[in-house]
């Protein structure tokens, strides 16, 4: 069987599975729609959270990014996992005890203010749409390469599936579908990683192979070999990177704090039955995430070595283009790889200096990896299914946050408080449907800035939600004036910096012009500090919060009496 038939078969089967689960788990009430009834087992919830978290970017792009960045790639590895420690220790148990449905719920109630709630709703919707546009694009890319349909058809197909199970099943449908998607995407990631690890180093476990010696009998460690090749080809050493220490520090912190402030992640901890489960669930989520995140840097190393050896040849003289392996020509069609014969010797050559003749998109490092390593057709098809699963699971989680923000935070809690549960559910479904369509539109006509706005999403979450929630739990004296001015100033500071360097004057975005040498990707950390500082000052100049709010803060600090997530 050829790759295409395998791909149709495996991707098709995975779709049947997702739809089956969705029909079995449809939501009957707003509580089931928003928080899956609040009765999800912590391990199941951890797995669903992991699938929700690992997006098309984690699955498709991350290993590729690390492959090109070397040591600097650690900002993503530590940034996107370290946030879970903050979540588990500082947020999840308290928010679960608080026991409502959404982040704006908490902000609105804790700061006894509709203004605060509205600011939170707007941030939540903006962050989620930013994210979801990228996911739909990911679905499109996978479909167009592996099923050989055009990107638009691919996005439509993805939309239809997400529409079906998100609108029908709500959080309940999504949670159980995500468990299946986690299994698919993990298999798709690990199978090729293990194959390649065995081929290159002889180790079954990629995490060990990463530090081991090469299996070619040379006795050289993989990482030393990569450092050597990097020096030879004019790249920075693989294990040292090029970013300044302060920038690496700030980017890592911004991603960690941003992770802990992302609404679609936080809402996950409202779905478990107890406070105890919320703590445990964050731990399980991180285990499931860590499996991929510790494999990714190994894949990055293997893929880089493989790619350089294939293109430059074992003797580093370049491979004849006419003898190029099929993956080069396959991926050339998608525009993700390109060759320009500058010195007209008919050979391909890849390097970090003027000898370079290749244009290689980082995304193909994972997608083409099985082809580069010459793995069987079914493995390649599995990777396609994994990419689609990663993109679908994340978009579904995000769409749910958007629809909840609209039906619950905006309508029920703000504009029309008297609607019945049934009506609210209907609004939630309609909002999800509209959100799917907008996301699909953004996937087909991606605004040129999708890649840039990811920094935005994390910076925004780090500089707005995170300080407001932390202060709300750990500082009883914090009042609405402090929280609102803090959120707004953190947000404005971060947004101005990013907009200036990314959109208004991208040419000026060089380390010499950055404040303290911090790039726009890391500025959320500074925005967070601004938020904390402003909030602390303003809160001391204004009256303390009312007694009932202080009592509420007392009561979320210990687990007893959490019960189920409250319907208001």
């Amino acid at each position, binding site marked *: 069987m050829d790759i295409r038939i395998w791909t149709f078969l495996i991707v098709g089967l995975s779709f049947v599975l997702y739809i089956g689960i969705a029909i079995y788990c449809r939501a009957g009430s707003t509580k089931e729609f928003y928080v899956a009834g609040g009765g999800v087992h912590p391990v199941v919830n951890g797995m669903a959270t992991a699938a929700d978290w690992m997006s098309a970017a984690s699955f498709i792009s991350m290993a590729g990014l690390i492959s090109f960045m070397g040591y600097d790639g650690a900002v993503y590895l530590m940034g996107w996992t370290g946030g879970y420690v903050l979540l*588990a220790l500082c947020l999840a148990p308290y928010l679960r005890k608080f026991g409502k449905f959404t982040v704006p719920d908490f902000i609105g109630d804790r700061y006894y203010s509709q203004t605060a709630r509205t600011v939170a709703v707007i941030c939540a919707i903006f962050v989620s749409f930013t994210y979801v546009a990228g996911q739909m694009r990911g679905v499109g890319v996978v479909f167009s390469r592996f099923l050989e349909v055009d990107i638009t058809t691919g996005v439509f197909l993805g939309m239809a599936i997400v529409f079906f199970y998100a609108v029908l099943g709500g959080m309940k449908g999504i949670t159980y579908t995500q468990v299946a998607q986690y299994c698919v995407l993990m298999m798709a990631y690990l199978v090729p990683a293990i194959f390649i690890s065995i081929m290159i180093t002889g180790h079954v476990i990629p995490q060990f192979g990463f530090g081991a010696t090469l299996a070619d009998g040379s006795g050289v460690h993989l990482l030393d070999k990569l450092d050597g090749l990097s020096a030879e080809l004019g790249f920075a050493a693989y294990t040292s990177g090029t970013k300044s220490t302060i920038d690496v520090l700030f980017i890592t912190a911004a991603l960690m704090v941003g992770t802990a402030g992302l609404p679609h992640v936080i809402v996950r901890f409202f779905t478990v039955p107890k406070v105890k489960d919320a703590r445990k669930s964050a731990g399980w989520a991180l285990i499931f995430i860590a499996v991929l995140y510790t494999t990714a840097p190994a894949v990055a190393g293997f893929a880089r070595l493989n790619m350089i050896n294939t293109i430059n040849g074992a003797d580093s003289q370049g491979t004849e283009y006419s003898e190029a392996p099929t993956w080069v020509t396959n991926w050339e069609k998608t525009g993700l790889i390109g060759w320009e014969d500058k010195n007209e010797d008919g050979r391909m050559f890849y390097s970090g200096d003027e000898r370079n003749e290749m244009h290689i998109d980082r995304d193909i490092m994972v997608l083409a990896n099985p082809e580069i390593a010459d793995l069987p057709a079914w493995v390649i098809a599995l990777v396609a299914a994994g990419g689609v699963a990663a993109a679908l699971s994340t978009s579904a989680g995000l769409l749910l946050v958007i629809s909840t923000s609209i039906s619950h935070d905006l309508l029920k809690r703000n504009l029309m408080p008297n609607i019945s549960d049934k009506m609210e559910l209907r609004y939630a479904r309609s909002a999800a449907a509209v959100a799917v369509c907008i996301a699909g539109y953004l996937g087909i006509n991606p605004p040129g800035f999708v890649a840039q706005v990811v920094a935005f999403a994390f910076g925004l979450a780090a500089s707005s939600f995170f300080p407001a929630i932390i202060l709300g739990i750990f500082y009883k004296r914090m009042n609405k004036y402090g929280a609102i001015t803090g959120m707004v100033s953190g947000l404005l500071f971060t947004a101005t910096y990013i907009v200036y360097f990314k959109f208004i004057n991208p040419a000026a975005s060089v380390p010499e012009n950055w404040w303290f040498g911090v790039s726009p990707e890391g500025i959320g950390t500074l925005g967070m500090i601004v938020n904390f500082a402003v909030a602390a000052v303003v809160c001391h100049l204004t009256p303390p919060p009312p007694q009932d709010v202080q009592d509420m803060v007392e009561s979320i600090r210990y687990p007893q009496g959490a019960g189920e997530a409250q319907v208001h």
Partner: protein
Amino acid sequence: MAFHSKELAKAYWRENVKLLLSLLFIWALVSFGFGIILVDVLNQIQFFGFKLGFWFAQQGSIYTFVVLIFVYVYKMNRLDEKYDVQED
């Protein structure tokens, strides 16, 4: 109030915050400390074929994070029982 007295509530919270801070210290030490600030120093040390600083940045910190959360879960459950504020 679920605590038997106000003092107990305060003591519980103090212990909780102390645990948080000590775990967050380790969290910051392995990531920001070993993985970033001290990376060049630790890279002098070889660790199963890795340079140690590089290993912390791309592998070790993640393993530590997982352990930290489960230590927290275990210790908090004990603390809840000590002050009799665990869930039914």
